[in-house]
């Protein structure tokens, strides 16, 4: 069971002539928090979209090691007729978005219920006639939704419209919604963007709790270095679409290549 949960092998992503990711390889260990960082335009979100199945990588493989064995994300997306990014979520990768994408005109609980559509009774007839099986599945789904609302400290907002919530809560709700799909890997795209320091602190507690108490594997893109250093076990640094550093947070923080990418290099060093 020591195989990494997610294995990204030599992934290259091209948009026409532009190469967004070149030969990226890294892996995400089970139960760890892995952070993907890098300056703006480094190709982090593109990488993310490849992993979560929104893009098909031009080259390379993204392998998810589940109970059903290894699955290549790329083949899930390109499967004829039934293929698509929804299969990636069903395989066990859930995600949140950089700009929050909640169902704004639906209530908070309903947002979480939609995420559980795979375990609820979707049969038309059972729903119309409210069969016992339907009611049980529905009750369990609502309870699970409340469980995650409790985890994210959102219980008081359960029956409000998602769009009315303050920004920080919307962020947490999005994480709760992703967790409701029962993922093996949750990918958070800049979860701390737009949060104030205390909300960021709360968020880091939430992520750590997911990892420690639920054994959840987390992959996170983040610009807030304080948060990254505090929560992550493993940091991957991208610059210009390539991996420039990969390792423990303290290792990455002291890597000259990373410092150069973030702060620039002085002229003498370039000449030397």
């Amino acid at each position, binding site marked *: 069971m020591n195989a990494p949960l997610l294995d990204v092998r030599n992934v290259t992503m091209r948009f026409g002539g532009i190469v967004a990711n070149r030969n990226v390889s890294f892996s995400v260990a089970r139960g760890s928090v892995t952070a993907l960082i890098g300056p703006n335009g480094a190709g982090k979100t593109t990488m993310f979209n490849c992993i979560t199945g929104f893009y098909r990588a031009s080259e390379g493989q993204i392998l998810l090691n589940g109970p059903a064995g290894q699955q290549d994300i790329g083949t899930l997306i390109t499967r004829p007729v039934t293929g698509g990014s*929804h299969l990636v979520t069903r395989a066990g990768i859930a995600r949140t978005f950089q700009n929050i994408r909640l169902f704004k005109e639906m209530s908070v609980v309903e947002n979480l219920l939609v995420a559980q*559509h795979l375990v609820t009774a979707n049969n038309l007839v059972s729903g119309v006639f409210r069969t016992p099986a339907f009611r049980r599945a529905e009750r369990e789904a*609502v309870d699970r939704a409340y469980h995650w609302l409790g*985890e994210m400290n959102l219980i008081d907002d359960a*029956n409000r419209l998602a769009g009315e919530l303050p920004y920080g809560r919307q962020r947490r709700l999005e994480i709760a919604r992703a967790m409701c799909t029962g993922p093996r890997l949750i990918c958070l795209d800049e979860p701390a963007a737009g949060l104030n320091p205390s909300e960021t602190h709360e968020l880091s507690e939430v992520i750590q709790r997911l990892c420690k108490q639920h054994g959840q594997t987390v992959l996170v893109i983040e610009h807030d270095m304080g948060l990254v250093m505090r929560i992550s076990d493993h940091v991957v640094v991208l610059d210009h679409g390539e991996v420039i550093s990969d390792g423990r947070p303290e290792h990455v923080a002291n890597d000259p290549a990373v410092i150069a990418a973030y702060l620039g290099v002085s002229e003498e060093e370039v000449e030397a």
Partner: protein
Amino acid sequence: METNRILTLAKQALLTFTVSLILFAPISGLVLEGFGFRNELVRAVLLAALVAVGRVVLSVVGMTALGRKLAGSAARNGGGVIVMTGNEKSPVLILALLFAAGLALPFFADKYFLGIAILALIYCLLGLGLNIVVGLAGLLDLGFVAFYAVGAYLLALGYQYLGIGFWSALIIAPFLAGLCGMILAFPVLKMHGDYLAIVTLGFGEIIRLVLNNWLEFTGGPNGASVPPPTVLGLEFTRTAKQGGVPLHDYFGIAYSADYKFWFIYLVLFLVVCLVIYAVERLRVMPLGRMWEALREDEIACRSLGVNHVFTKLTAFMLGASTGGLAGVFFAVHQGFVNPTSFTFFESALILAIVVLGGLGSTVGVIAAALVLTILPELLRDFAEYRVLIFGVLMVAMMIWKPRGLVRVRRPAFFPSTAPRGDTAPLSVSPEVAR
């Protein structure tokens, strides 16, 4: 300050006057007379002046305290969706009364009014069907009338060629219309809304043109006749024509042509109630929730593992099925179908019902369907202005009630046990405790 306001008012009035003059001058200022035309520009100027005065009056009223209050309250009502608290009184009593009233209607109404009621219920059915597609799933369908036609012609042609009766058609029509919906929608559902709108618009016209031009099969513009309904072998005609027994003979009562309409009305009423129940259930079912989620944000849906193509397809098919059902009732009520009943105007009318009622609101759609079918009947004297009133109504709605007549209410959900204590063995965290 005061002069400033008057200046603004004057400017506004001048602008309104000019624009309306440009609009009115060719429309009502020039009157055709044989091959030439007569100048009636004074009329145009008067009309434009009237509009300008109206605009000024509106502005002045808007400046007063009362006007502001009115505008404010109108704006507040416009805000769309609310979540129920879970403490609302159950409307069972009102629903039961409405149901009883609906069932009793044929005994009080005359034949003319019953005809209108049947028509109104048919439009209810159509509105509910389109509401699934447009209101819940957010797919713009401009050719809904095609499925209506499929249902109607199924009964007419099915009787002619295969001997299908009313009841069999009632069962087959939803499936056939749903199948048509699937065949139509599958190739285009991967596209975004606008393409779907164009394709459905085209499909609606294609169905009508095929019905119109395939003379040997459909009877073309001459239409096809529809058999009168039967119930358990009893017929509603004076003498049996379909091998059964006439109803009045069987019960030994006097013949009346009204029985047929009573029967159609009652069956239709029950079907509408069933569909309303199903649609209301759908809103709290996983499938309905997925439709609404798709309307809100398709990308987020995909990230949650929702198969967006399949989910949209179910919405499209269920909507089409309801349309097909309405078609059967239309055919049996008219006793005759021809392609002129299934024009684009009909699609637009159904869409107007859904939009007026408030996208996604069942009560709103029913109310709008009743208003839009009964009102024109009551206003027979103003028949020439019907479309004008219709247009004014739509414009007014879009300004003051853009979210429809009735607010959408979302259901509330509560956990099966006490909300806090139990949320789990897992969640004994400092934050929840705090």
